[in-house]
């Protein structure tokens, strides 16, 4: 259970320590990729809570979404269409939906466990 948290910490440390300098134009793609990653992460958490979690779907979705978002943004820049806005919108909306779903599921679980406790008493 601690391995993923440990991995997250290592990743953050790496991110802070690595002194890579990418051109300013590409920071847009990075932020969209981050958004996609967040979306996938919360999607995964929700799926886990709903007992729908599939590792292959999660991991493939994680990387595929990142690449797709960045690729869409890239394509949009080169086509003159602000496709990255679409990506941001979609991922943003889904992010909120996922978080809301997680909240609801947690509340539900919490209330069920309380009822159980009451019954037990």
């Amino acid at each position, binding site marked *: *259970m601690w*391995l*993923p*948290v*440990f*991995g*997250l*910490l*290592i*990743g*953050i*440390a*790496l*991110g*802070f320590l*690595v002194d*890579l300098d*990418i051109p*300013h134009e590409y*920071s847009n793609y*990075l*932020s969209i*990729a*981050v958004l996609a*990653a967040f979306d996938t*992460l919360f999607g995964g958490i929700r799926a886990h809570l709903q007992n729908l979690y599939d*590792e292959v779907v*999660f*991991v493939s979705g*994680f*990387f595929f979404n*990142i690449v797709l978002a960045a690729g869409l943004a890239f394509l949009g820049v080169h086509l003159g269409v602000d496709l990255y806005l679409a990506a941001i919108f979609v991922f943003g909306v889904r992010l909120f939906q996922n978080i809301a779903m997680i909240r609801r599921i947690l509340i539900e679980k919490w209330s069920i466990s309380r009822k159980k406790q009451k019954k037990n008493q």
Partner: protein
Amino acid sequence: MGKIDGRRVLLSFVCVVLGFMIAFSYNLTKDNRGVREDKAWNEEYMLRQQLIEQEKQNRQFQKELLQKQEAVSKIEQDLAQEKQLFFKLAKDTEKFRMYLGKVKVKGKGLQVTLEDGTNSDPEANVNNYLVHEQHVFKVVNELYISGAEAVAINGQRLNHDSYIICNGPVITVDGHQHPAPFIISAIGDADVLGDSLDLPGGIKEQLVNENIIFTMEKKKNIIFDPIIGG
């Protein structure tokens, strides 16, 4: 257990990637924002500074220009003065050359002719009827005194160191012999020259008293050639 481990490792890898991306993005955004604002501000500051520097320099150059212009105008004044001086000098030179007989001169003037007197009395001394060098001297001196600018005897111009000597029946002017009659021409104000010779008890009277035939003629145009080898 192995399967679970594999899942955990994969999840951990995903977490590493996620953490890295988040941190990196955060870092980049922070850096970029600061750098961008700093850049713009710095650039503006630098440009302003440059402008100020340039204006300062312009001011200084303007001052320099003013100073230089003053200097130039001063030099020009000096030049003008110098020019005037040169002009005067040139005029003086011309005048002096004229006096020295180095240049051709022409102008109106007076012509005096001295002829030997006619000897009516055979017993009288013939010397009393001849034109002597002192007569010529007197006339020449009087002419110079009354403002003649150039004088010539029988067409031979006199200069500052001319000499006139009596040599029997002829007189010698600067080594050239001239017989009577002597035509003494002078450039100058003919009226003044004539009047000064004509004074009562003046040269004319003296010469006439010494039996010399004295004729005076005002001329409109007298030309003296420069003295060659003078």
